[in-house]
C-alpha cells in the first residue's frame, strides 16, 4: 500500500497520512459496564481481512477519512 485516494485531494502518497486506528464496535455480548470500558480501551479486533479504520490527511486537507482496508494483503477497499 503506497497511495491513498483522498476524496478531496485525489491520489496522494501514504506518507502524507497518519494512521488513526481501527474503528470497531464493542461486542453486544458484553453487558457489564466495566467489561465494556475495558474492551473499548484495550482490545483490538485486529482482523485478518477487511477492517474499517480512520486515517488523517496530515499533509493535505487535514480531514479524517474512513478507510476500509484488507489487512491480509494491505490493499484499500474503499475510502469515504
Amino acid at each position: 500500500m503506497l497511495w491513498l485516494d483522498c476524496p478531496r485531494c485525489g491520489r496522494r502518497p501514504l506518507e502524507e497520512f497518519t494512521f488513526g486506528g481501527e474503528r470497531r464496535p464493542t461486542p453486544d455480548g458484553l453487558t457489564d459496564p466495566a467489561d465494556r470500558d475495558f474492551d473499548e480501551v484495550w482490545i483490538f479486533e485486529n482482523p485478518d481481512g477487511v477492517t474499517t479504520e480512520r486515517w488523517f490527511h496530515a499533509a493535505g486537507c487535514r480531514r479524517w477519512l474512513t478507510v476500509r482496508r484488507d489487512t491480509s494483503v494491505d490493499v484499500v477497499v474503499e475510502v469515504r
Partner: protein
Amino acid sequence: MSRYVETLPEIRWPEAPKSSYDVVIVGGGGHGLSTAYYLATRHGITSVAVLEADYIASGNTGRNTTIIRANYGIPEAIRFYQHSLEMYQALENETGAEILHQTKGIFWVAHTEMAMRTERARALMNTACGAKTVMVSPLELKELVPQVDLTGGGRYPVLGASHHLEGATARHDRVAWAYAAGASQRGVHVLEHTPVTGLVRDGDRVVGVETPDGPIAAGVVLSAVGGRVTRMAAHAGVRLPVRTHPLHAFVTNDYAQGFGSILASTELACYVSQTERGQMLIGAEFDSQPSYSRQSSFAALRSYSYKITRLLPFLRDLRILRTWAGICDISADYSPIMGATGVDGFLVTTGWGTWGFKAIPAGGEGMAELIATGRPSALIAPFSLDRFRNDHVLADQGSAGTR
C-alpha cells in the same frame, strides 16, 4: 565451515502425532521450542508436542534482526531481559549447539537534548536493575565506531549515546534448532506442517487442538503463535490487546572492513549490525497500519535507507541484497503478555512485537515453570494478561525500538 555444520544438532522428527499429550504448544518458533525444551530439561515433562504450521522458525524467529539486549526503561523489563541475555551467554554450553553468539555492545545514539535525558535515565535505570549501560560522549563513540557521522548528515547531530555493553547477536535459526534438537532428543514431538485450525473445548475448558488430521487432546494448550495470535485466542473466546503490524528488514552486500558494534537510534527508529557473513543488517520501526502482509515495501526500504545513511554514510556504497518482512504482535503497552488467559487449559505467550528474539530463553523458561508448577515466577508475573484490567500496564514503548 565444517565446524558450523558439525555443531548443527540433530532433530528427531516423530513419525506421526500421538492422540494426546500433557502439553500442546501451538507455534514452532523460538518461544514455543524453548518452552518445550525447558519443560523437558528442567521439569521432566516430555509428553509435549510443538505444532508448527510451516517449518520451525519460519515466522518471526527467522525474520528478526537477532539483537539481544536488556537496555529497557522499566525495572520489570530490564530484569527479565537481563536474565534472558545471561541465558543466551550460557546457551551454547547448555545445549551443546553453536548459536554463533557474539557480544558486541549496542550504542543508542541521541540527537536531541530530550533524547539525551532519556538515554541518561535509561543508563541509570539499567545500572540500578543489573544491566550494564553507560553514557558515552560523541568523541568516545567516534573512537569506538569510526564509521559514524557525528553530524548525522547535517540533520541528526549526535549529542551522545548510551552504550549497552552486553548487547549481543546470535544466529536466529540456530537458536530455534538448538532448542528443537534438545527438546526432541528428550522425547518432545516437534511436528512441522501441522497447522492448528481450532481448539477443542469442553465447557469452558480448552482440552485440545484441532488439526487437519484430526484433534489432539492436551492437558494444557499454550499459544506461542506469532502473527495470527488474535485468531488463535478467539478460538478460546479470549480477546487480546494485540495488533499485528509488519516490520521490514534488509541486508546489503558484504562490508569487508568490519563493523563490530550494533548501532541504533531511537529517534530515527532504526538499527544496524553486521551478520557473520559480513552483510549489513538494517531494520527499523514497524508500519503504522496493522497488516498481515509479509510483502516488503519500497516505501519502507526508502525510508530506512534514508535514515540510516545519515548516521553511517558508508552504507550508501553498498547495495540492498535481500529484503523481507515479518508480522509483529504489538501489545497495547509494548510489553509481552505471558501466562493465564482466564480460560482453563489455555495459556498464551504473545505480544512479542519487535522484542521477541532476545526473550526466547527467559520466556521459554518462565512459561515452562508456569506450566509445570501452575505459578508464574517473579520474573514473568508482571507480564500477565490481567495487568490491563488491574491498571498495572508496563508502558515501555521508548525501549522497543519503535516510536
